[in-house]
């Protein structure tokens, strides 16, 4: 795994911002703090967190709780109904589109990314591929396609009333990607 280049990161960020998302970069050590600051920044008091080895290692949950955010790591289906924030790790990213790619049948990860109003998707820098086609090949070559895979590109949106583009319908109203530098 090689580290993400500045150029590739900028490409990912630019494209995500172009569709109304935001993007920050963080080291693994700073990840917990970065997450907590983002949530606190828009007054999120409770959030669903889907644990992953990266989150555990970086101590994300502890950092969130230390910042006073009520953090749920189980009963996510239930808490998803009321929690304002959601955070999970995405397996890949596509730079040319600003897309987060979920490759996992874990239902909690799907819930955390769709139910709350604010979603943070964390992706390792080394897991960001430059192009869409490359991503498709990677998925096609998996030994077995997981029960669920999904692309998320920016917050949910609609143009169904008078063709006016409006952000935030059934999914998140806000979305931030955190690109974590691999060590």
């Amino acid at each position, binding site marked *: 795994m090689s580290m993400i280049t500045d150029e590739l990161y900028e490409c990912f960020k630019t494209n995500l911002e172009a569709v109304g998302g935001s993007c920050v970069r963080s080291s693994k050590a700073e990840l917990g703090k970065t997450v907590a600051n983002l949530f606190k920044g828009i007054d999120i008091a409770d959030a669903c967190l889907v644990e992953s080895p990266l989150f555990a290692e970086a101590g994300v949950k502890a950092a969130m709780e230390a910042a006073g955010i009520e953090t749920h790591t189980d009963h996510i289906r239930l808490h998803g109904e009321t929690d304002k924030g959601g955070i999970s790790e995405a397996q890949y990213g596509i730079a040319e589109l600003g897309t987060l790619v979920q490759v996992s049948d874990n*239902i909690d990860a799907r819930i955390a990314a769709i139910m709350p109003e604010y979603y943070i998707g964390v992706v390792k820098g080394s897991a960001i591929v430059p192009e869409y086609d490359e991503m498709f090949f990677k998925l096609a070559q998996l030994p077995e396609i997981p*029960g*669920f895979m999904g692309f998320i590109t*920016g917050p*949910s949106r*609609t143009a*169904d009333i*008078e*063709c006016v583009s409006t952000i935030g319908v059934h999914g998140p109203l806000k979305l931030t990607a955190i690109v974590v530098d691999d060590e």
Partner: protein
Amino acid sequence: MAVLVDEKVREEQELQQKRSSELKQEIHDALDNTTLARTLGNFCKTYPGRRLKSYEGIDFEGNREKIKEVKSYAADHVDEMIEKFTTNCEKRGGHVFHAHSTEEGMEFIRQLVKEKGVKTIVKSKSMASEELKFNHVLGDDGVLVQETDLGEFIIALEGNTPVHMVMPALHLNKEQVADLFTEYTKVENKPIISEEVKTARKVMREKFITADMGVSGANVAVAETGTVFTMTNEGNGRMVGTLPKIHLYIFGIEKFVDKFEDARYIFKSLPRNGTCQRITSYISMYTGANEVVLDKETDEKGPKDFYCVILDDPGRRAILAEPEFRQMYECIRCGACLDVCPAFALVGGHVFGSNVYTGGIGTMLTHFLVSDERAEQIQNICLQCGRCKEVCAAGLQIPEMIMKLREKSAEEHPNNIKKFALDAVSDRKLFHSMLRIASVAQAPFTKGQPFIRHLPMFLSGLTEGRSFPNIAKVPFRDIFPTMIQKVPEVKGNIAMFGGCLLDFVYTDLAQDVILDLNSIGYKVDFPMDQACCGCPASNMGDVENARKEAEINIEAMHAEDYDYIVSACPSCTHQIRQYPTFFEEGTEMHKRAVTLAEKTFDFAKLFVMLGGLADEGDGKELKVTYHDSCHLKRSLGVFQEQRDLLSHTKGVEIVEMQDSDQCCGFGGSYSVLYPEISAPILANKIENIKETCADCVAVDCPGCMMQIRGGLDARDIPMEVKHTATIIAEKRGLR
């Protein structure tokens, strides 16, 4: 017996007339809907530019070939696709039901819903479910079916059908939406779009959380892996596939591709063509019984109940069985063909469509999958301009298929009134003498006079917002013998195909074409027995008369005797190029048709081919804006030659108008059948022309010339409209 037949014919006529006047009413209603005009008009205006931008860096043509390739492969192996998908989805714990009719599919779903005790359903967009009348049937069974796509939700509240395949509620404004929401939620909703979207989120959230079943439509189904794909922006598709414990997919056999990576071509064009996005917010891929939370209180998880209903009804099989329509299988339902369609931009999909499918491709889908009768009405709305073909994600021959539909219905229900006119056109003598009579007595060309009914459709188009040209006092066939052609060194011989407009209306233009060709060393002949090219007959689906006319012209033009055939009307050129398709291969007629077709060129193309491009001209300043004829640009691929000819002409300055290749609304017989649609299309063209402040509009089609001249004239705009051949003749001093 004879009486019986007459009776039937009369009934048929009455029915057709009734339907046609109903459709006219629908057209008027649509044109009166100011919201539709504003939103759809704006959308369609900005669409081409936004679409192009989304394709930056993408090889659209290349991707289109790939889509064709993977989808046609699936079409050729459709039974294998169904089998493979079924095996692979079931291997992963899913259940697949192969429905051989819409009724069978719906019955299976009804039973499933009953068996599982389903009370509420959340549904993301699925056009196949509309074909099953899903909401209706289950509603009658007492099941609550909630449309969750915002647009679909709004039209469900309105009790209407989608006006557009991708944007179903374009015909309503925010005030109307607010009223619908107020009525539904029983609290007041303000006409503020962002607030309305919030209301939708709130209303739907509750339904998502409590629904027993989620229903989705697929954009793609992969046979090799048993994976179904759904693309949405709102996130409703995700919610439907994430929360309920039972998940049902409904899709037609046309959604298959063989391999997982094949899907990538489709998702490259679908968002770009559909909504001018490089990608939508969500693409979700489900393979078999994926995980779900079974009990939110205990947090128990497990595989969901996952069902796929594959719709394989006789209509879909009929599409595959008909060689001319089989390509419909390749359609990815992106809606681009609607977004560029000039007729659709005006009236929307409630008129140009059925309760499920809309626009040009929707006309064919309606014919095979929804209602043959409805398709028969709306197929006449198409102007045959060909714009849809240019942007189609799968390169479908949409106008050609619409033409085939017309042929089919002309065969099945010949409309005697239309046919009378066409019979007259193909009877050369009768037609020509009618026009001569008309030229003596111009009065009958006034609207409402009895004679007009008997005129060929494409000439009887005196409509609002456009003046009708005068029939020439002396037809070109009588002028030609008096012309003296001075060609010192003859390089070759050309025969001119005049077509009705050159022969009987624009006789000066016919002379200009000859003068131009003389000036570069070619002698021109005008075979007297030539008749109407047959384009009006073809346009109305009357193959019999079109073939008759082809025969007359093959005989008359005697292409074997000439180096080239020149036509100054792209619709005639296009039609002559079609002649070989009217005859069986191997026959003498076919051979002769091919010879004629291969030698026939449009003026600009031929003139440049034969070395006519030269820096000549009187040098007098003339600001020219160019209007592309639909046939010349899109069917014959000629758009540069005329511009080169004009820009090399000394004194001429070209100023391009906006959307120069947007149809002028003439469309052959079209402006007569649907003046309601034709007139605003013309008005739009005139606006774009006016903005250029040019002195002269250059065209290469006498039909466009007639239409645009009429439009300018009716508005008292003193701008000239001239054929390229005329500008050359004038500027080079050949007259």
